């Protein structure tokens, strides 16, 4: 028997139309009416929610999209993005789906 490859994990944000945003400089406040919770997030997190994870993406693709136009594509950066996505998942703003 050959081992099955691990399923590819993708991430998708709550539709931006279901969230309310308010931006002051680099700080963004996000309100999630479904949960009644408000979160203060940074620019990259807001970018993930509004744009990058509007469609299901793997971690690598999301990190690439976030780093577009910059040189930050090293392993450490991907680890940081993974931690950020997992935090957004804990907050109920991002969900994990089968790839």
């Amino acid at each position, binding site marked *: 028997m050959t081992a099955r490859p691990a399923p590819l994990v993708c991430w998708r944000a709550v539709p931006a139309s279901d969230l309310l945003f308010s931006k002051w400089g680099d700080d963004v406040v996000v309100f999630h009416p479904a949960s009644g919770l*408000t979160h*203060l997030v940074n620019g990259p997190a807001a970018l993930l929610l509004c744009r990058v994870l509007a469609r299901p993406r793997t971690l690598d693709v999301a990190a690439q999209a976030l780093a577009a136009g910059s040189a930050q594509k090293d392993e450490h950066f991907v680890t940081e993005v993974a931690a950020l996505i997992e935090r957004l998942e804990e907050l109920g703003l991002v969900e994990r789906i089968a790839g």
Partner: protein
Amino acid sequence: MTAVISSRIGDLSPTEVSCRLRGRGLGIRIGPFDVCVKASVQDFDEPFRRLYREYPIVEAGQVFSCHVSLRDVWKLRPRLGRYVRFAVDGRVPHEDLPSEQALAVFEWGLNLVIALRMQCFLMLHAAVLERNGRALALPAAPGSGKTTLSAALAERGWRLLSDEFGLLRPGTTSFLPVPRPMPLKNESIGVMQAFAPGLELGPIIPKTRKGTVAHVRPPADSVLRQHELAPVRWLVFPEWRAEEVLSLQEVPSAEGFMRLVTNAFNYDMLGKAGFETVRDLVNASRCFRLSYSSLNAAVAKVTDLADKDFG
């Protein structure tokens, strides 16, 4: 708000006040609320009349925001004695408390009614005062000294809108006044008596669940102008600490937003309307963190800010 207002509580004699409280009720206007009060409790009528003497009377028979009542009950437990029972529209929302605490029970009960029932407003847990035509909100958790600070500011000429409720109609950024007697607790009573020796206080009520309590009568002008809204300008998050060095530090708007919603009664229940109202409030304001130990210094600092910013 269609009720007929003919006079103020202070226009009634003590006997008339007692007759109304014990009869069909005494209607009073407190900010946007018309409240019908019935009370047949010892030692309540005189301090009530004194603290509420500037409030307009709403004639009985009108539509009221709520009907509240206080009445004496004898109980065996927790100790044999006379207790006061608070009811709103016939319902009793909490346990009976010792009868000598009747005035405090009335004030707490009214807070409860506003916080739980008046959901058409965005309600911030904040003191609100006005100077130079602009509102200062002091959002803070219980015990942070906001009542003492608001009583001190009111004593120094600020118009009191509330020491407890920052009240807004969703979609607006002007606070509605709901001036009420301000409950000082424990050491704050002596602090305020030293700060303002002529201060008019209600009875000192010991051994309540919040310790010793005494209510400051709201300034007459604040009650007379309780129909005048005040547009927001300053959101100041106060924190009293012994030995603290005075500091008034401007904070980013996003931080102001988060601190504000942490101190709201019903922001999350209002959904989009709540979010947009808080956002507009923050956009119309400057946000500060105030740390202090000296009441005099804090009052001077905040007043200086208001006069320089909008004098």
